[in-house]
């Protein structure tokens, strides 16, 4: 199901860990959804000098974390901001369709870390680390997990982004 590239990054992840006294921290996802990624960066001369990740998630999520840190290391901050979820998935030689949402976390976490670095540089107060257990959606609506909009009951696809995976969750 997974490409050899994905399995390589899953079995031999690069850049695991957490940087001490990081210059930027980016955290996305949460355990409720089953995917959570924290990226820490060290910045020198406007380049990503060092970068590490911690991930709670599926095989795809771990591979994505490893790949995105590998792609970002040594790049300028501008170059790193150009890394997208699609380019990470491409570098991994593709992900199964139902795993694409896992790939969304990688570039997002990287960008968040860089934005956090900028905020700190400008002397803005440090962004609070997002609470681990966020409240999650009330289990009452059918919703699209990609753009997080409510959709009508039993709709086969999301009318906003067109993706077909709809969560139909009703109280029992």
């Amino acid at each position, binding site marked *: 199901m997974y490409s050899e590239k994905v399995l390589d990054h899953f079995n031999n992840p690069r850049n695991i860990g957490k940087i001490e006294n990081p210059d930027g921290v980016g955290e996305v996802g949460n355990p409720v959804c089953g995917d959570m990624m924290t990226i820490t960066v060290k910045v020198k001369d406007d380049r990503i000098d060092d970068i590490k990740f911690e991930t*709670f998630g599926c095989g795809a999520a771990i591979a994505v974390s490893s790949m995105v840190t590998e792609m970002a290391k040594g790049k300028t901050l501008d170059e790193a901001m150009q890394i997208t979820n699609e380019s990470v998935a491409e570098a991994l030689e593709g992900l199964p369709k139902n795993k694409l949402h896992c790939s969304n976390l990688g570039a997002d976490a990287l960008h968040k870390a860089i934005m956090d670095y900028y905020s700190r540089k400008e002397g803005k107060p440090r962004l609070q680390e997002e609470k681990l257990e966020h409240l999650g959606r009330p289990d009452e609506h059918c919703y699209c997990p990609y753009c997080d909009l409510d959709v009508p009951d039993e709709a086969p696809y999301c009318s906003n982004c067109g993706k077909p995976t709809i969560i139909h969750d009703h109280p*029992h």
Partner: protein
Amino acid sequence: MKYTIYLDNVAATPLHPEVKNVMIDYLNSEFSFGNPVSQHHVGDYAAEALEKARAEVARLINAHPQEVLFTSGGTESINHAVKGVAFARRDRGKHIVTSNVEHNAVLGTLRMLRARGYQLTSLPVDHHGMVDPGDVKKAIRDDTILVSIMHANSEIGTIEPIRDITKITRERNIPFHCDAVASTGVIPVDVEDLGIDLLSFSANQYGGPSGVGGLYVRPKTQIIPLLHGGSQESNRRGGTHNMVGIVGMGKAAELAREEMPERIEHLHTLKQALLNGLQSMEEILINGHPTESLPHLVSASVKYVEGESITLMLDQEGVCISTRSACASGSLRASHVLLSIGLDHATAQGTLIFTVGMATTPHDITRSIEVLEKTVAFLRNMSPLYRRKAAN
């Protein structure tokens, strides 16, 4: 190729060798293609094989042969039972009682009915996953037309108190459907003893082939067919019979009945070895009831790690298990069963289902635990949840 250690028997069991032989013999027979409803000797050959299989299946659950329908599997049986009764009895009412831990085949069907005007009461379970028969009594209304509660849960193994529940439904004259897919052929399931009116079950849980199952219907139960338009199964389930599958199912039923006590012992010994191995690991929760539980199923929550990453790593070492993490199940939500027993989302996402089988050996268990230990250490090392907890 890595040696396969198959611990996902609840998905499907390997064919029992004698079942395989009987199916191959049938395929090799001159009239294997015969349609049982045909009016000639080719059809007769099939008809005889059909009724022989039916008798064995009925014997497995202590029913009369004419009370057993062959279906394409557990999901069809469940759909037939729930929709069939709901539509047949809709003049009497539209209220159905079920539980929060039913299989998606039941819940999906009930959701469809709810969208069409039926009303549902879904009962909560305790932290073991048990339904309280008292709750069933309280939930029943004058317009209740069906109660559907599973026998054994295929995610956590808990066996529900069916006898106590049917005492209540019989008193109120309400048909009781039981999803017994995970239990029939594994542990004793007696429709008389348990007081069941409709029983859904599947051959691939006890050494039979996938794609064939059965529905027991107590005489006088009001029900309409799911598959209309055929005279098969005494006009109750249309469609030409899957003869090879049915022949296999019959043999599997015969062997399951004869060998059940030894099988349960074998499975339980392996389950216990697995539990011992898991309990020696750190921060692993075992779910389900400690005693009222399937003899071959272990549900284990591995804290701080997600389920699919574990199954992927184990699979690379040849070990096959299952998880219902959002990523693995494709639903993007944690399992409703695990949430119903009170697990938080993160713990639910790291829950594994092991189901041992007749081909499993003690060495398989030892090796699986070995691989699991390495896997969990590797994944916890990169988990922000584990790092955070370790820091505190």
